[in-house]
């Protein structure tokens, strides 16, 4: 009887307190804020889909989010605000330009350096006032060692067709384990872009001569397998998936800023319900992928921005809108030579 009582007491007492459990869960499945996707905090296991017609700066968004991930939180006393984790970049578009990543990373490091060493910089400036090397100093005032360690946290592979993609996903678990044994953790899995082999896979569907026992290499089967493999990865490792998707059908009635303004007038006449139900673009991904995605963003091109600061004639301006979860504000941003500037959100 005594044994049973102590056993029962042990069972009731539990393994850990609520505080311990919360601190463990928050550490493993912490909220991530990845600019420029920082309007909605992301958690491990989230799958974010960024849709936009080409060109829409989708890859730029991935690069900026990647930089937020590979930067450390602090280094040598300067606060960078990053996650210090690895980024796995699956390039299905095969167009990734590492120069752009390098440019944007250097710019971020310079910015953080200037902010971090504010007082020091002003002091230095007065000391080296008419010295030409001051300009050079400003260009190299970032930590080379930090730059290299950040670039090494960016892992890249390209796939030229669906079979290569499936092969890569199947062996990804072991590669991540290898990295984790070296002490580095993976933060984000990026896919650019998810609909790249759509037409090729659709053709395989129509040409499939599989018998009943064999699973044919069709579009639905390929996408189902991709979703399955990523789901297994998400179970084993805590990471966020961000995938870009280029539109493959032309929009007959492109929804741009002007159309949105008209729709707000239509609300009075009761057309709001119809407008809200109209999908912003023609969806082509199979339902297995659509059900897998937890967050959706759409990028549209807005009117060209005339920048008086840089003196350039016109820079491309884009708008970023969260479709899922639906936010009422839309971010506007422009892409210029050194960075991507997020301007004030436009209240719609």
């Amino acid at each position, binding site marked *: 009887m005594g044994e049973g009582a102590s056993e029962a007491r042990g069972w009731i007492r539990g393994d850990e307190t609520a505080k311990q459990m919360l601190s463990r869960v928050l550490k493993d499945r912490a909220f991530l804020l990845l600019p420029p996707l920082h309007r909605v905090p992301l958690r491990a296991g989230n799958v974010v889909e960024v849709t936009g017609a080409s*060109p829409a700066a989708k890859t730029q968004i991935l690069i900026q989010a990647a930089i937020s991930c590979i930067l450390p939180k602090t280094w040598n006393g300067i606060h960078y605000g990053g996650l210090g984790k690895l980024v796995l970049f699956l390039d299905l578009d*095969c167009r990734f330009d*590492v120069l752009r990543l390098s440019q944007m990373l250097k710019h971020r490091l310079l910015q953080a350096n200037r902010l971090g060493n504010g007082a020091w910089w002003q002091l230095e400036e007065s000391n080296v006032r008419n010295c030409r090397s001051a300009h050079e100093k400003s260009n190299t005032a970032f930590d080379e060692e930090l730059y290299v360690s950040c670039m090494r946290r960016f892992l*890249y592979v390209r*796939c030229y067709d669906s079979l290569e993609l499936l*092969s890569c996903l199947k*062996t990804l678990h072991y590669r991540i384990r290898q990295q984790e044994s070296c002490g580095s953790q993976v933060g984000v899995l990026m896919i650019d872009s998810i609909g790249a082999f759509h*037409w*090729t896979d659709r053709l395989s569907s129509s040409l499939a001569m599989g018998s009943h026992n064999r699973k044919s290499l069709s579009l639905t089967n390929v996408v189902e397998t991709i979703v399955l493999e990523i789901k297994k990865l998400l179970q084993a490792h805590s990471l966020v998936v961000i995938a870009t998707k280029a539109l493959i059908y032309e929009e007959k009635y492109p929804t741009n800023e002007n159309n949105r303004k008209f729709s707000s007038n239509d609300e009075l006449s009761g057309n709001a319900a119809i407008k809200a139900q109209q999908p912003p673009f023609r969806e082509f991904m199979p339902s297995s992928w659509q059900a897998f995605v937890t967050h959706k963003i759409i990028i549209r091109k807005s009117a060209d921005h005339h920048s008086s600061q840089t003196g350039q004639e016109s820079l491309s301006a884009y708008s970023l809108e969260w479709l899922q979860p639906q936010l009422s504000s839309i971010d506007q941003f422009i892409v210029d030579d050194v960075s991507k500037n997020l301007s004030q959100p436009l209240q719609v």
Partner: protein
Amino acid sequence: TEDYVFVKIAVEDFLLHDLYQLAAFADRQKNADRLKEGITVMLSLVELRCRPWLNGMELLEDLQRNKQTLSSGDKGVDSLLKGGFREGQLTELVGPSSSGKTQFCMQAAASVAEKHAGRVLYLDTGNSFSARRIAQFGSSSETSLGQKVISRISCHTVYDIYTMLEILQGLDVTLRSQVQTNVNEQRLRLLVVDSISSLITPILGGSGSQGRALMVAVGYMLKKLAHEHSIAILVTNHTVGAGGEGVKTKPALGETWKSIPHVRLMLSRDHKNSNCTISILKHTSMPSGQTVRTTIRKDNQQCV
């Protein structure tokens, strides 16, 4: 005695199935160990097929060591593109008919053959290639290009997309089997397809997936060639009516093609004078919208 189980399965079948389910299925069979061994062998074969993951520094190293920037032959374009065409990238030039696309291509071919001492493969679809004209694109207006430089450019006439695919596949095999002793000596640096839209447009008709799948296959083959053999590829495309508000013309080949080239340039010509404007529609490391004005070189004239 051991039971040998012969299972006729292709790698594709293997890739489409869930490994854990396969292993669980194997467990239920009599010779579970042998089957599991087979699965492990297949997995190692799959892993051999996979490319290795490269980190950011390794990507930069490959870029700086292997992928040089080739001058286009026009100073304005070179300054717009920060050097010119990059090896490993697919550059598309879009323009209406008789806007000077072929001239641009021939000028680029001459520039690569002369300044970078590289071989050029020119695929001509419209019988517009002219060796005499290319010879005039030398850097000095006095003398035309010498025989040695011209011989670096080889031209093939291509009338349909299947011939082009054959040529590209043959090129891939040839380049793979060549032993690179001296990287800079006489290797293929530029591939020109003038114009790729005339090869693709005939097969794009209708809403079926065959035409677009073939277009995507061509695009990926070009990008793979460019990346693996460090070649710059220049293709031309024509324009079609846009039918919308504002913009009158747009590039042909549709929405899917937009994601294929690394760099897209728009060429427009002012027919009153011989001025051309080239603007960036898309670039992997530069914002779009920037333009440059240049002058078409007439016979025996200097380029401004």
